[in-house]
């Protein structure tokens, strides 16, 4: 079968380290199979760069099927590219036109310093989780799983919040670089479930304050985060976080 191939022009952010100055470099990728994923296209570009004795474009990826949250950069001003509900590893070249110019930039936020090229440091997210994104139970004998009844509706809702892959697109797309969707999703999941209720006051307080201390911006209720979220997590999670916080402000304990 004859395959049609395509060519795209890339403008890629290159930055050798966190302290160095970055700049855009231009590359042309030719003879691409439209069924390639975007990352595979970059793999091909990199192979050429390596053969030419140049440094390949650094980017992170792992599962390449949209679940681990490792990949992510901004394509033409859109986190994870133009398709909704998609990570960049799930984006295919067929969603571009032959001859397109594509601008690729890393997530940009003070709390996500660039490590190299398109690779950023997202440790801040893990610190937000360690501030309270868990149920404080140890390992050991537990009551039978079915002794905690949770209606399907609640459990489905909790799942919607729990689907977050921690990729950071919400921060990247937010004009304020706010991490509210990420933080709100975990707070919401655990606030909905009976297991998470005993420590909800402490949790929301610690997680929100950690988010602030990490230097993320504040939510202006713009909702671009939801639009770019590969798991389409709703900003209702942010509203829920606010209710939880208000509750914590007013609670006695």
């Amino acid at each position, binding site marked *: 079968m004859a*395959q049609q191939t395509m060519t795209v022009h890339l403008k890629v952010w290159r930055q*050798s380290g966190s302290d160095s100055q970055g700049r855009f470099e231009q590359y042309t990728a030719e003879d691409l199979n439209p*069924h*390639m994923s975007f990352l*595979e296209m970059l*793999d091909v570009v990199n*192979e050429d760069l*390596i*053969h030419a004795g140049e*440094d*390949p474009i*650094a980017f*992170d990826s*792992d*599962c*390449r*099927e949209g*679940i*681990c*949250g*490792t990949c992510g950069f901004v394509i033409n001003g859109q986190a994870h590219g133009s398709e909704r509900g*998609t990570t960049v590893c*799930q984006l295919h070249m*067929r969603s571009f036109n032959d001859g397109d110019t594509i601008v690729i930039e890393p997530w940009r936020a003070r709390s996500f310093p660039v*490590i*190299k090229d398109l*690779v950023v*440091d*997202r*440790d801040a997210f*893990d610190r937000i*989780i*360690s501030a*309270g*994104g*868990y*149920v404080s*139970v140890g*390992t050991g*004998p*537990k*009551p039978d*799983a*079915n002794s*905690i009844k*949770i*209606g*399907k509706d609640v*459990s*489905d809702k*909790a*799942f919607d919040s*729990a*689907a977050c*892959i*921690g990729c950071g697109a919400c921060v990247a797309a937010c004009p304020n670089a706010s991490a509210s969707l990420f933080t709100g999703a975990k707070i919401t*999941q*655990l606030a909905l*479930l009976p*297991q998470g209720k005993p420590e909800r006051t402490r949790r929301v307080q610690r997680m929100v304050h950690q988010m602030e201390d990490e230097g993320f911006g504040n939510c202006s209720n713009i909702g671009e985060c939801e639009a770019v979220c590969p798991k389409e997590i709703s900003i209702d999670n942010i509203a829920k976080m606010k209710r939880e916080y208000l509750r914590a402000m007013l609670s006695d304990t």
Partner: protein
Amino acid sequence: MTKLDARMPDGPLQQKWEQRLEEMKLVAPNNKKKHDVIVVGTGLAGASAAATMGELGYSVKAFCIQDSPRRAHSIAAQGGINATKNYPNDGDSIWRLFYDTIKGGDFRSREGNVYRLAQVSNHIIDQAVAQGVPFAREYGGDLANRSFGGAQVSRTFYARGQTGQQLLLGAFQAMMRQVDRGKVKMYPRREMLDLVLVDGVARGIITRNLVTGEMERHAADAVVLCTGGYGRTYFLSTNAFNSNATAAWRCHKRGAYFANPCYVQIHPTCIPQSGDYQSKLTLMSESLRNDGRVWVPKDEADVDKPPHQIPESERDYYLERKYPAFGNLVPRDVASRNAKYMCDKGLGVGATGRAVYLDFRDAIEEQGRDVIEDKYGNLFHMYHKITDEDPYEVPMRIYPAVHYTMGGLWVDYELMSTIPGLFVAGEANFSDHGANRLGASALMQGLADGYFVIPFTVGNFIAEYDVQKVSTDHKAFDATEDDVQDQIERMMSIGKEGSRTVIEIYRDLGKIMYDQVGMSRTKEGLEQAREEIVGLREEFWNDVKIPGRADGYNKMLELAGRLADFLELSELMAIDASERDESCGGHFREEYQTDEGEALRRDDEFCYVAAWEYDEDGDPKMHKEELEFENVELSTRSYK
């Protein structure tokens, strides 16, 4: 020669674990914090082990390659996790899960280990629920179950198609809680490159900081390896891009035996490769085979025709034809092998000719589109997204892909390797799945090891051996770090001049492995593969091209190091496969099949675990651990 001692407790199967727990020595609570434990890997096994040991009071250091422990490959598991809760009241029991696992593994696993796995399976579900893992539920609030992978009972718990993600996040969060409490120190973006032995005991590791390129030394009283499987030896697999065997292989080179390296599971329902640029393959849940019908054109001339133009009479529903009893639901290995045969015969479809159809036309006609959408909507969506073809209209194209490795570092009942102080958990060990793993049991095993076995057996080791502190200034650390440094320098110096990229060589290795050490193997092919691997290894060490520098973020250098190890491990896989003159589970030797073309096991000669000892001169030595079956009778699988 050391005799392999599995340290299996005596006594009846049902009491072995309890009895061992009672015998174990304990570390005094206030002494625990003086004991450092290293956990390498933060998948299900590693995260759960680190969380539990941190909580018990040990000073834990945890390491992972990814930028966050939450991204370990376990995150990608879709289908579910088994447990013998018997909530659906369909007759499940610990015994049944035990028996199914032993049989599914084609009688090549240890009874004691598997029984323990079945025993703790229920605790895993209780634990996960207590952590807030949002498993699927019924309207009344109870947990939902489904049957999976041809099991006759519904014992699989799931969280939509993201069970691995939710279980891992549960374990990850438990671990992050210990990070907050200062009990676990997390080191992300670190790759373990060697194990440090002091007087023959595992006392630390050397890691490379993947951001700065710096070498780092970490000492501990015990090292727990939870670094996952080696499916990426085949380059293309359903495993994540960074999955690797480096940590396990380097431990092997330091003396840990590698068991059953030839046992690899090849999953039948994956999205086929679309071109040479392909970097990984995507798995689709095997539940699709409940309603999809597998076929290829009868005539080679039809393979390029659009499928709807091929009339019913010209289609070969080969699984239904060959296995009338099980039809499209034959086990993974059988389905995979048959797809390969069809494609080898030139009947494969799609751009590369390496795919078979999985057709839902009849199911949609009989049950209606809505029903099918309800059952498989998300899978159809995923397929559509990747291939740009609508499976409601055109049959899916599928092809088998490497998915899971049953082999791994040899461990005893307490999950300790042949190196004292080195424990191995999760997919990285060989322990529970024999020659073939059943669906939904890897998650179970990872968490069983991490939550319920390792924390006790490591404690027992620390108490029993009375380990003394070593400092990272010890000369063993100097020597090991020098070895690692030398290898990196060697690679970088060849890499400057070389002409073939890491990926090019890696793809070649993948091809050799798929062709000769894949779904169907022959002695001749395996020997040829061995030769080719040796040649490729030479090519790597003479002509590999590696860009950039060693003192910073360098993905290709990382990958080169992993490839160097795969180039050695792959040879051992070929050797092991060629030594095992029988067919069992995922290991199919064409010379050993029944008249009907089914796997022919040879229990009289091969009912053992092959544990390989490393040899610098390329002549590894096999140690046999005979498998004794006291509780089950060896039988033959039949799906006709």
